[in-house]
């Protein structure tokens, strides 16, 4: 097993990635070496780093012998331009980060303008069910581990030069396959651990809190946000599920049952450890 680390600041990279994992989950993790440092955002374009911040992550990754890996979310047209500029800036400084795309527009961008950058299909490419309430009757998940569900998608991704697929633990299983679906050049398989996203969107309540009555939500989808959520997930209580929930700005995460997570570990080559639920 190899590890990626998703930290919210570039400093304090632990020698063992498992140290970054929330304590209740560490016992599930096998030994392995850390190979990548993730930064950026998979869920909110306002959480993308500027060039200096991204540069700092690239420096931290280089100093520790890790691959800098930029996560990108679904993007507005302006956000897509920002990612293009960010990649221009990083490559101009000599960096060659891997890019996790969750938006097909980013894949187009990588194919058209940043061909040299390694690309990875992010967890939003997998649209399988993740409803936390589904675990009430099936704590192990649905256990339909049939990778054939995604055969054409894998071929498409390989044709586009994508080297890895990433996901979090969905309820249905099968997305990561068993590693043999792609013939001679199997796709690498990455699992984000331990938080699964349940729902995300642009109607962020924490952003809305910055506006007076009558503002926020749909009125400000395109307004930039100073990301008051950054590094500080809020615990969320729900009556309809006992699974721990977290709000990271515009996204709700939860911790799936450990029984379900164990089944996913067998299908991953890399674990990306999230120190906290962060969009």
């Amino acid at each position, binding site marked *: 097993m190899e590890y990626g680390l998703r930290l919210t600041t570039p400093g304090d990279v632990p020698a063992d990635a498992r140290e970054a994992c929330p304590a209740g989950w*560490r016992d599930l993790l096998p030994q392995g070496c850390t190979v990548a440092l993730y930064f950026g955002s998979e869920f909110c374009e306002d959480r993308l780093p500027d060039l200096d911040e991204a540069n700092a992550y690239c420096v931290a990754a280089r100093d520790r012998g890790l691959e800098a890996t930029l996560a990108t979310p679904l993007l507005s*047209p302006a956000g897509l331009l920002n990612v293009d500029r960010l990649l221009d800036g990083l490559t101009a400084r000599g960096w060659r980060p891997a890019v996790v795309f969750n938006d*097909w527009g980013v*894949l187009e961008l990588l194919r058209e303008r940043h061909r040299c950058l390694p690309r990875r299909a992010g967890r939003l490419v997998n*649209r399988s069910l993740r409803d936390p309430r589904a675990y009430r009757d099936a704590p192990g998940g649905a256990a339909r581990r049939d990778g*054939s569900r995604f055969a054409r998608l894998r071929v498409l991704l390989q044709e586009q030069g994508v080297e890895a697929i990433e996901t979090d633990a969905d309820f249905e299983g099968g997305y990561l396959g068993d590693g043999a679906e792609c013939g001679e050049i199997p796709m690498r398989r990455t699992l984000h651990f331990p938080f699964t996203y349940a*729902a995300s969107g642009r109607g962020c309540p924490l952003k809305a809190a910055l506006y007076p009555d009558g503002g926020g939500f749909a009125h400000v989808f395109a307004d930039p946000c*100073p990301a008051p959520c950054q590094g500080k997930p809020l615990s*969320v209580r729900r009556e309809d599920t006992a699974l721990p929930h977290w709000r990271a700005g515009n996204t709700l995460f939860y911790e799936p049952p450990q029984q379900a997570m164990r089944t996913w570990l067998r299908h991953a080559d890399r674990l990306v450890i999230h120190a906290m639920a962060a969009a």
Partner: protein
Amino acid sequence: MKILAPLKGADEVLPLLEAGAGEFYCGVTPPGWEAAFGQAAVHRRSARSAGVSGLSDLERIVRLAGDAPVFVTLNAASYPAGAIPHLVEFGRMLVDAMGVNALIVAEMELILALRDGGLADRVHVSSLATCRNPGAAAFYRSLGVSRVILPRHMTLAEIEQTMIPGLECEVFLLNDGCAFEEGTCSTTHAFRPYCIDDQVGHAQGRLDERYAFWKWTLNNCGCQTSRGYMLGPCGLCALTRLKHAGVASLKVVGREAPLARKLGSVRLAALALRLAEDGATRETIRDAVVAERGAPELCENAHLCYYPDVWTDARPQPRQKSPSAARAGSRRVVPIRVEALPTLSTAPGESC
């Protein structure tokens, strides 16, 4: 621009055509689906409450619609193993044998399978696929699909920038909003909409009250006017801009709704569309809509707007400004200090 009306049965076709519908969409479940795939969904909406009763009714729908195109949803977010070949053949039968004009599809595996089966130009990419920028639109165009349905959570400016040559765009016009982006909500309404019970839950003034109010407007304010019109999300005042942008189709949401609600929505849309085609201003359209529908107070602060940036010059201002606003050029930055936030707790085992 055509008004795309929802259908649950053939009896609705002629009244909706008369009201101004130019296109139709509906859902129908493949014969034998339940025996093969159990309770797995074929559509985003419940087949029981929103679907056409069967193929014979669909046949009537296509016949009665005449020149108005009919589209069929196969838009579940994901499908069980083995379902894709079944759906491709079903889709082919709908198009080739029944005269359905296009299939509304969300899942990438099914889109790719339909492409491989020579049906790409009969695919409309569902809003669940979250095509939100011109790069994503170019990607879908490269697959050969004929239309993308843009998600609800886009501004008018973003719609304008996302439209590219060679690909039709459809946008949401009336009813039924979503608190989360539909394509990035990985939960199911089968357990009750996940967003309904979502609360921030920390002391933050009236935030949860405001959040609940927003969700209430997205849920059609839970009511209708005394004249029978819905009070849900609405993009009518944006029609003139949508027309100039080149939008092809205007979606009225709500397949499961009673005919009276559908008729009200399509009539209102047709009224506004006639004005937009004559070059009416947003104010003229709003006044005409309010005069017909009622409930002017819900338009006063753009509470119901799918595209509130149509009123951009009249939007509420942020609470305060800071030097960081300068960095954003003409875009508005909302400054905030961490100490002004609600009490935040960290995730267990926090290390950073």
